């Protein structure tokens, strides 16, 4: 069985945000405009969190890309009253837009705050809509959305493999963020396959889960040579 997973090497991430735009381009994420963004309604599925360490001049800035962690035990799933978000057999936290009625319960229950909501219908003034990815639905207003691990690419990868009568190989499916990363800080693949790149990354002694204490069993693994929360002195 496949368990899609991602590993992000924080030591390689520069915070350049190429992935953020790649994600928006791939997934038809609407830009909400200045007014809405000011309200806190920007819709990035992937964000680069920035934290400081120390005081000037010994201050350091650290970046952490945060996206849907595709938890193995996801807090968002059980609270949805209509099964619009559920656990997919391949370990994805699926989000079915058509089913979503917009209670926003899932977003509240996400410890990573990675779910975003379509407060209004998306606007893509022509011909900007020419760019829209035909493999991804344009979500209507009132619907929750989040990172899908580029599920359309996963499906396309499986379709391609099936057409060629073979199994999906490691590296067949690349997420948009992974693809564009200049420093190659992202690995994606099957965590159940011990030989996949992502599994090998996940075995690293530097690997950890974000908010691991919550036991949400994320499908996203972070790698960092430095601890994030330093012991109190």
């Amino acid at each position, binding site marked *: 069985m496949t368990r899609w997973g991602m590993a992000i090497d924080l030591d390689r991430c520069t915070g350049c945000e190429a992935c953020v735009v790649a994600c928006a381009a791939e997934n038809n994420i609407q830009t909400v405009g200045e007014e809405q963004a000011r309200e806190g309604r920007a819709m990035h599925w992937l964000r680069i969190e920035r934290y400081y360490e120390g005081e000037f001049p010994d201050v350091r800035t650290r970046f952490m890309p945060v996206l849907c962690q595709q938890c193995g035990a996801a807090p968002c799933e059980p609270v949805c009253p209509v099964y619009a978000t*559920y656990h997919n057999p391949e370990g994805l936290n*699926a989000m079915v*837009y058509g*089913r979503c009625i917009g209670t926003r319960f899932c977003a509240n229950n996400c410890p990573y705050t990675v779910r975003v909501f379509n407060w209004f219908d998306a606007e893509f003034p022509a011909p900007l809509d020419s760019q829209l990815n035909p493999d*991804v*639905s344009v979500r209507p207003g009132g619907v929750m959305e989040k990172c899908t691990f580029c599920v*359309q690419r996963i*499906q396309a990868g499986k379709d391609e493999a099936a*057409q060629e009568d073979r199994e999906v190989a490691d590296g067949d499916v690349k997420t948009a963020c992974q693809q564009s990363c200049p420093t190659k800080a992202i690995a994606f693949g099957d965590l159940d396959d011990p030989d996949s790149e992502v599994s090998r990354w996940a075995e690293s002694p530097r690997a950890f889960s974000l908010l691991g204490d919550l036991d949400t069993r994320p499908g996203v693994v972070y790698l960092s040579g430095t601890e994030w929360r330093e012991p109190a002195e």
Partner: protein
Amino acid sequence: MRLGTTLRLFVAAVALLAGACGPTQNLPTPEQPIAYDHQVHIEAGLECVRCHRGAEEGVHAGMPSVQACAGCHRREIPDHPEVQKVMLANENREPILWAKVNVIPDSAMVHFNHRAHARAGVECLTCHGDVASMTVAEPVRNVADMGWCVECHRENEASDDCLACHR
């Protein structure tokens, strides 16, 4: 009023409503800009995939280009009034906008993949009906009826994961 009578009336009313708006009936046959006759073309020896090139290999079956239509019709009945419309569009390099017959509305957010179904051996007529014997293509069943999709997927052990279609 007897209980049985009430129940019967209720069932009748429900059936009436279901008939009016239900998934399987009363699908309108849309009006097309050109009176294209499927039967005639099939009888002339054309295969579905000759024009709908993506039906087996592609995600979408697709429509033939105006250029392709005109290519054949330069020899075949070029003077037919309906064919003339195609020839004119070809001359003007204009596309032809047909009305979709089998529609999965955008709001369903379904991404149907023809080639996956062709690979699984699903016949065209399962969804489209026997178009070969139709003059004007008409819907034979509501292809946007999710229950029907799911039933078929389960029977054939295809994925019944929502993400297989919705994404």
